């Protein structure tokens, strides 16, 4: 009898246990997968966020760099992790753009529960500060005159942004791939390419130092850190496509865990300390959560899909 009772209790507890565990989420350390290497933008933002999440939740948050394949390895690991909220990941524009350009990319936005947007960076074309090209209009007229003259560097999904830009401005510069934004900026300053597709955070210090000139950003609003640079819409070429850094969890996480993480994100994004930390590494905090964020992601996905169609033509 006692044996049967205890067996019953054991059985019952095994059903109850997961629920009980969720009520107490988080009760052990959380792993934050960063699918990119140390020192880059995703790494810096991920580490800043994990520090704040650790303070908020009271458990350790371990940033883990799982690198390789333009994020393929890390995104795949995060999306196939157990959906219990103890594995979350930095998701970014590579997750949205790469499935459109890399055959067999093992993860996409659908494999994730979007938690919150932390930062969206306007992306634009930067040229050497000593160049004759002063505005986006100059760039377009030179590119239309002689399609072979201009070389435009890009990194990863910057290709899709460059193609979209080419589409709205009716230009077709030679696209040169680089493995990091630092490399493409170096190439512009060294005079090896005429321009590069970079974000405001990536270009900031070189623009301040008068080494780079931003022609325009392909965003709806002007950049907060470089407010003197016009948007492409102001120059007559409306386009809204850029880079972003966000937090995501595997697809089927329990709703209360999702709510917990969204609340955590909302709180953290309003903390002065986090905002200050993000500003120092060059990012402006821009919070979106829940359905608002999901809708925003869908629009980004459409923009990248449209650009990818251009690639196939």
């Amino acid at each position, binding site marked *: 009898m006692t044996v049967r009772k205890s067996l019953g209790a054991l059985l019952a507890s095994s059903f109850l246990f997961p629920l009980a565990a969720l009520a107490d989420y988080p009760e052990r350390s959380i792993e934050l997968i960063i699918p990119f290497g140390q020192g880059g933008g995703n*790494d810096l933002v991920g*580490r800043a966020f994990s*520090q704040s999440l650790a303070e908020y939740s009271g458990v350790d948050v371990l940033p*883990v760099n799982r690198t390789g*394949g*333009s994020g*393929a390895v890390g995104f795949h690991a995060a999306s196939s992790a157990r959906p219990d909220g103890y594995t979350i990941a930095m998701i970014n524009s590579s997750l949205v753009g790469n499935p459109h350009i890399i055959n067999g990319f093992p993860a996409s936005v659908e494999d994730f529960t979007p938690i919150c947007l932390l930062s969206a960076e306007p992306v634009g074309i930067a040229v050497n500060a000593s160049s004759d090209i002063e505005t986006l209009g100059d760039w377009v007229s030179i590119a239309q005159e002689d399609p072979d003259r201009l070389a435009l560097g890009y990194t990863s999904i910057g290709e899709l942004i460059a193609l979209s830009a080419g589409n709205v401005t009716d230009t077709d510069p030679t696209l040169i791939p680089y493995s*990091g934004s630092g490399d493409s900026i*170096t190439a512009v300053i060294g005079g090896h390419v005429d321009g590069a597709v970079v974000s405001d955070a990536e270009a900031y210090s070189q623009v301040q130092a008068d*080494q780079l000139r931003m022609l325009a950003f392909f965003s709806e609003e002007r950049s907060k850190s470089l407010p003197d640079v016009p948007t492409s819409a102001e120059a007559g070429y409306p386009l809204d496509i850029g880079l972003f850094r966000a937090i995501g969890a595997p697809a089927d996480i329990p709703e209360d865990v999702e709510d917990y993480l969204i609340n955590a994100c909302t709180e953290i994004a309003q903390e002065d300390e986090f905002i200050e930390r993000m500003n120092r590494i060059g990012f402006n905090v821009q919070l979106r959560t829940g359905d608002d964020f999901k809708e925003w992601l869908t629009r980004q996905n459409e923009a990248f899909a449209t650009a990818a169609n251009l690639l196939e033509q």
Partner: protein
Amino acid sequence: MFELLIQGFASLLDPLLLLLLVGAVAIGIVVGAMPGISPSLGVAIASPLTFVFDPFTGISCLLGIYIGAVFGGSIPATVIGIPGSAMAVTTVFDGYPMGRKGKAGLALGISTISSFIGGVLASLILIVLAYPISQFALSLGPREYCAIAVLALMAVASLSGGSFLKGAIACLLGLFLATVGLDEINGQPRFTLDIPYLMGGIPFIAVIIGLFAIPEIMQRFERISHRSQPIVQVSKVVPSWSLLRRLLPAQLRSTGIGTIVGAVPGAGADVASLISYSQGRNLSKRRERFGSGEPEGIACSEAANSASGVGALIPLLTLGLPGGAVTAVIIGSFMIHGLQPGPLLMRDHAPLVYQFFATTVIVNFIVLLIGLPGAKLFARALQVKESILLPIILLICIIGAYALRNNPWDILVMLGVGVFGYYMAKAGIPRAPIVIGMTLGPIIESEIARGLLITRGNYIDFITPISAVIWAIALLPLYLPLLRYVFRRIRRRPHYRNQPS
């Protein structure tokens, strides 16, 4: 400028700060000595810990860890024949044979002194010539990077150990392994068999550890059982004056090569040590002894990679541009400390920049101070019973293979490659060329593609004046015999004419 420099050195006279730097260098040496824990990983892990300090102290500590780690790689390379990273592969080539001849202490002494000379001279070059060198490095583009990588590829001949054919086969294997994953230009998967793991490519560090460490451990296990192990005597550490004088030209030359290659954004310490080693061998009077424990080989390799470590700081401190993986991490730390790296750093924070200059010099002295007495200690590792030492090495290797990408599959790759490497060692196929192929393959491939995109597919424009010079040096071994033959003919001809015919 001179005043600022003096102030920079003066600010380092704080005993607490010096102590902190000694600690940082010591941590760096441990980081570098652990196979697989790269300098960039070490700096990235330590970076948040430095935020409790002011920017100067914090970044100085990171510089200490970085420079310590570049040196640290030579310790396992010499003592147990395992390169901690690609830049120490050339050190294994002569350091390890010296160690097996019972001169591990001396080999470590030479590598320490060479690292010191390379590091200090490169720091002085950094102080005096940072601006012109960074402008020169900036003027080099894909076409020159490609030529530099081909120059480094010529090291296959030096690192094949006897049979060039076997070396070339191994190098091709390395070039092939490097193509697995996403290609750098179009981002398309190659040889990935739809496995997400392979999209990330074959883990380079795991292959290095597998190729060098596992066969070594297996071979030692074979010999472990019967006789009791002979006690290895630790030889003297400090080389004699005559030896030092003989090594000096090689060290100076390697420092020059290392500093420039390090400052070039497209190449790093691994490329620097390969170029320096093969040029050193070609120019040496004792070239046939390279690869069997020639001190000059260690000097070339270590002076070059240390100089290159400092050289990578040139574009960082003058232009705010990363010269490699580690400097990218350091740039991140600059920003978290509230400093914008870039040309403005020199204008707005000149005293700080000179303090960093002074730090690089001091840190290299600390490397010498820790390295020389430490050499005896490290060499003693050889006196530990093999039945205890080998499992520890194996454990460290497993941690190292896992640490870089946090991927458990990397450990299996390391072990698999290790078994393969064991049979390669038995068959007398050199293993270093695989590493060379894997290091340089991606650089050469993507730079050729970028270069041709920039020239719009024009092959003639692909050769620029600077790259032509580098190509000429790289391909010298191919046409040198021909030149010699032609010279000999020309010299003989007048002689024939004097003969009555």
